[in-house]
């Protein structure tokens, strides 16, 4: 029930924002903030109360099921396990920050803005807890539309193009997934006579060679577009760089995670054989993504675009790890989801702050900002280092585990992926160098350092990334208890030597 409550609060909060904003924009901001904080606190509070029960091998923390379209075996089935819980917490944490960083940035039509923001969050949260494939697809699309508006209305100069591209890419994948879901539904129905979209029932479907592979590809394409995987990544740089700050934060921090979540939750358990069959290719594409994203990131002069390409690179690790099929790599993948959300999100927030002050995203027009903004410079450095995978920060743990886990499976690709770490250093340092180092450019006014609100945002993110770096064990425990103990059959690695 708390899950319904959680999503419901966001949906209602969104509508409330819209209505309230007719009178006062400030009120809309507070409503949005309160709604997200409530959504954040509800599962957290529940978790703290029930902690002992969870750390056991109890797989599903909470379930809720209601009939929806019984004629097609569709039900409104929500459930949460450790993985979902973590991602939901990430969602709402970043959600709170997204509201905060839109505080002053969005001056017009803020009611509608927060409506979209909250609905996107609701959609994302829904994706993480939906246990009915139809419902999953439903939420998958729900998060898309408000996001489209966020980009198309409050975006930058080239926003319409970016919004189209974003929408069309993801929708293509989504529809293919829909086809695959249907195929799965019918195959399962024919096998068992029970036509249902329920995840747990579908887990028992046995799928033969070619059919299974096609259906799996349907799912996989949707997820890797979202992830994104090279060469299906082209929506990402445009969408990320044109979106407003909060939009970029949510895109990078959360939307990409839904793709990875999909792979972990659906592709691997539903299609173990088919996944094993294409594992090598998936890993290869992951590695290509790591290297290619890094190369492109290095070439960019637009700060947000640069960061966007780093996401491509980082998400390559996810693909690599997910298809290594062992616990170390998969735990690394989960970790990567969290840390990438935090670190890249922080970089986008930073880019947004810079844009607010300098009115440009071109790093050639920046430089020497450390002098003017020592606090931001220091914090920026933390996240630059996070993005290049410095130990002590969460990203290192994630990438280390992914590489560690995939090394025995495929040493060559892992070694190439490790080269990505050098490239990561290249582009990350380039950010630091171009933006914060060098001579302070002559600008009309000296940009101000962080305000208190911005401090809160950055402090939260910094604390999160350091905590994840130094004491990640709770995350692993949660995921392990929920994910690897029961019922999760890992595909047998197809490639090993």
């Amino acid at each position, binding site marked *: 029930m708390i899950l319904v409550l959680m999503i419901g609060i966001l949906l209602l909060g969104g509508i409330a924002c819209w209505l309230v904003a007719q009178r006062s924009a400030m009120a809309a901001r507070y409503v949005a903030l309160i709604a997200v904080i409530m959504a954040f606190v509800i599962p957290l509070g529940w978790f703290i109360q029930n902690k002992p029960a969870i750390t056991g091998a109890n797989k599903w923390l909470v379930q809720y099921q209601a009939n929806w379209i019984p004629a097609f075996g569709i039900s409104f089935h929500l459930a949460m396990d450790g993985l979902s819980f973590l991602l939901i917490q990430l969602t709402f944490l970043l959600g709170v920050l997204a509201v905060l960083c839109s505080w002053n940035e969005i001056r017009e039509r803020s009611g509608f803005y927060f409506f979209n923001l909250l609905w996107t969050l609701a959609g994302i949260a829904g994706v993480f807890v939906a246990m009915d494939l139809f419902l999953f697809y439903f939420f998958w699309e729900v998060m898309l539309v408000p996001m489209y508006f966020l980009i198309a209305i409050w975006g930058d100069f080239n926003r319409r193009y970016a919004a189209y591209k974003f929408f069309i890419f993801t929708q293509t994948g989504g529809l293919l997934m829909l086809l695959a879901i249907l195929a799965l539904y019918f195959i399962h129905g024919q096998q068992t006579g029970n036509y249902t979209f329920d995840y747990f029932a579908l887990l028992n479907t046995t799928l033969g060679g070619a059919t299974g592979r096609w259906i799996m590809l349907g799912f996989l394409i949707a997820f890797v577009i979202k992830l994104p995987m090279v060469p299906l990544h082209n929506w990402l740089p445009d969408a990320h760089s044109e979106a407003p700050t909060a939009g970029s934060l949510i895109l990078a921090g959360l939307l990409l995670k839904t793709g990875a979540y999909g792979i972990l939750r659906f592709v691997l358990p539903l299609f173990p054989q088919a996944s094993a069959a294409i594992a090598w290719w998936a890993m290869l594409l992951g590695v290509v993504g790591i290297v290619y994203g890094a*190369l492109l990131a290095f070439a960019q002069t637009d700060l947000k675009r640069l960061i966007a390409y780093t996401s491509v690179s980082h998400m390559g690790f996810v693909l690599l790890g997910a298809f290594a099929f062992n616990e*170390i790599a998969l735990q690394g993948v989960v970790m990567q989801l969290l840390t990438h959300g935090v670190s890249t999100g922080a970089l986008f927030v930073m880019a947004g702050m810079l844009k607010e002050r300098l009115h440009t995203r071109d790093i050639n027009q920046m430089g020497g900002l450390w002098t003017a903004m*020592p606090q931001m410079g220091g914090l920026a450095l933390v996240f630059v280092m996070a993005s290049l995978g410095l*130990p002590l920060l969460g990203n290192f743990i994630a990438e280390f585990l992914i590489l*560690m886990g995939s090394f025995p499976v495929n*040493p060559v690709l892992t070694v190439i992926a490790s080269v990505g770490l050098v490239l990561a250093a290249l582009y990350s340092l380039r950010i630091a160098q171009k933006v914060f*180092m060098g001579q302070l450019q002559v600008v009309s006014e000296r940009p101000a350092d962080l305000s208190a609100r911005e401090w809160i945002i950055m402090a939260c993110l910094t604390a999160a990334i350091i905590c994840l770096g130094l004491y990640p*064990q709770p995350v692993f425990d949660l995921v392990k208890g929920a994910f690897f103990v029961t019922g999760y059959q890992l595909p047998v690695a197809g490639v090993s030597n």
Partner: protein
Amino acid sequence: MNQLLAYIPAFPLIGFLILSLFGRKLPKPVIATIGAGTVCIAAIITIVLGVSFLQTPPAGGAFHQLLWSWFKVGKLSIDISLQVDALTLVFIFIITFVGALIHIYSTFFMWHDGDYARFFASMNLFVCAMLLLVMADNLVLLYLGWEGVGLCSYLLIGFWYEVPSNCRAANKAFLITRIGDTALLIGLFLLFRELGTLNIQGILQQAPAHFTTGSANIVLITILLMIGGMGKSAQMPLQTWLPDAMAGPSPVSALIHAATMVTAGVYLIARMHGLFQLSPVTMTIVAIIGACTLLVAGCSALAQTDIKRILAYSTISQIGYMFLALGVGAWSAAIFHFFTHAFFKALLFLAAGVVIEALHHEHNIFMMGGLRKRMPIVFVTFLAGAAALSALPLVSAGFFSKDAILWYSWSAANGNVFLWLMALAGAFITALYSTRLMLVVFWGEPKTPVHEAPAQGMIIPLIVLAFFSVTAGFIEWPHNMMHLTLFSDHVQKVLPETIMKAYLPSEWFFQAIAALVTGAGIYLGYTMYYGKAGVRWQQSPGLASTREFLFSGWKFDQLYNFIFVKPFLFLTRINKSDVIDRMYNGIAQGSLRLSNWFSVSQNGSLRLYIVGVLAGILFIITLQLLL
């Protein structure tokens, strides 16, 4: 005693946190107190710990402290836990003790700098990271420290970030070491795959049983670890970053790029000696790399004009000696050289810092001169350092350590005559450039006015270090002289003893040759650079190209530029707007074109529409006819 371990890195860490969070609001004296004080406390704790270690050696030869379990996934279980054994003790002593001196020096040296707090924050963080590196009981924690020192090195090289070239130097340092780090990381993966653990003790215990000597895996692992070490320790071919790293403030060069961080590679190889012993091939490679590096860097040092760059090349060269020693299996000699080198090289850098400060940031040695009279204390301490560097027999610490290496490069089981000759040539060159440096800077005509006398606080560390530069060698005497082996006894609690060749000639003979070569080097330097001669050499046209070649560090930078940097930049430049995007744009364009074609059919002509209907029925009927 175990409980004390955590405090050693903790104090610098606390210093870092305070300074980085509140540093901007604190007055300078407070900053100085915190910055230097925390390191001093760490040094005191270290000494207490060291005394206790020597008096009552702990069970198992090491102190242990488990702080918390870092992460535990599947078979992989990594703790944050510290360990101090004899080898580590040497390192933490140097780190905290020399570190503390340099911090004290810095409080005065950096007094006029605007970013006082940032400097000390970074330095404290560095000390903390370096301590973690050497105290880590597993390789992942070691890697954390390893990267941490890289970060601090980056921050401190680019400390004066307004100057673009400094930033470039910082980037270069970070990137090149990063290459090594990545190799190290891959090595860790391989190790874990083979042994299922990353705990150092565990690895060293399991390795002999698991690997057969010289098998492919072990060779690969050790080579990867070695590359990691090469990156950090600026060995060929990854040495090019260190000279540029001199862009940082002098105390940084002293602490990071001379005394401590650059020897991390040495530490790593020494720490993992159990693996290296299983792979003779790698040992040989290490030795050869060390030998080559010491020659190449030494030659480069001959041609430099920037005082700090000379010292930087000499650092590379000296670490080359350490690698050589490691390669031939002279473990304790390598560590001993590290020990003495830390003192005298730190001293040289600090003294150079004083000189540079006094001469309005003048780096060129040919613009100096005649400082002997005007800065006598600096001169004396510098002399002590230079003597140690050129290994002046018996009166310098450098002699004892370097002599041991020269001896082992021949006499150890892995050693041979070529290595020995190269090391000998290196000794000659070292003496030569040391002399050159001394003569050009301290003798001759004054060329730049001295701006002010150095503060007392800067002089004291110089004196302390000079004292150690002279005396640190006395704890370990060659076998044939006094056979005092305090140091190697200590270190050999961890490291194996050097395996010697059978039927060796007398050690005296070698010592004599070494001393002779050093003398020759000094003499040659004297003839070349005393008085006006130096300028003549510096300007002689016949040697211009050679000098150019050496000056640029054997053109390694240009080579890398050509092989890696330019293609990379080219690649990124041409693909800035992502070729794959073209594909999708093409699809979009295609659809639009199709749309235009189709819309021709919507030309409003009723007759065309009728033709459309006709076409439809024709299609249907024809289909029927065909089927």
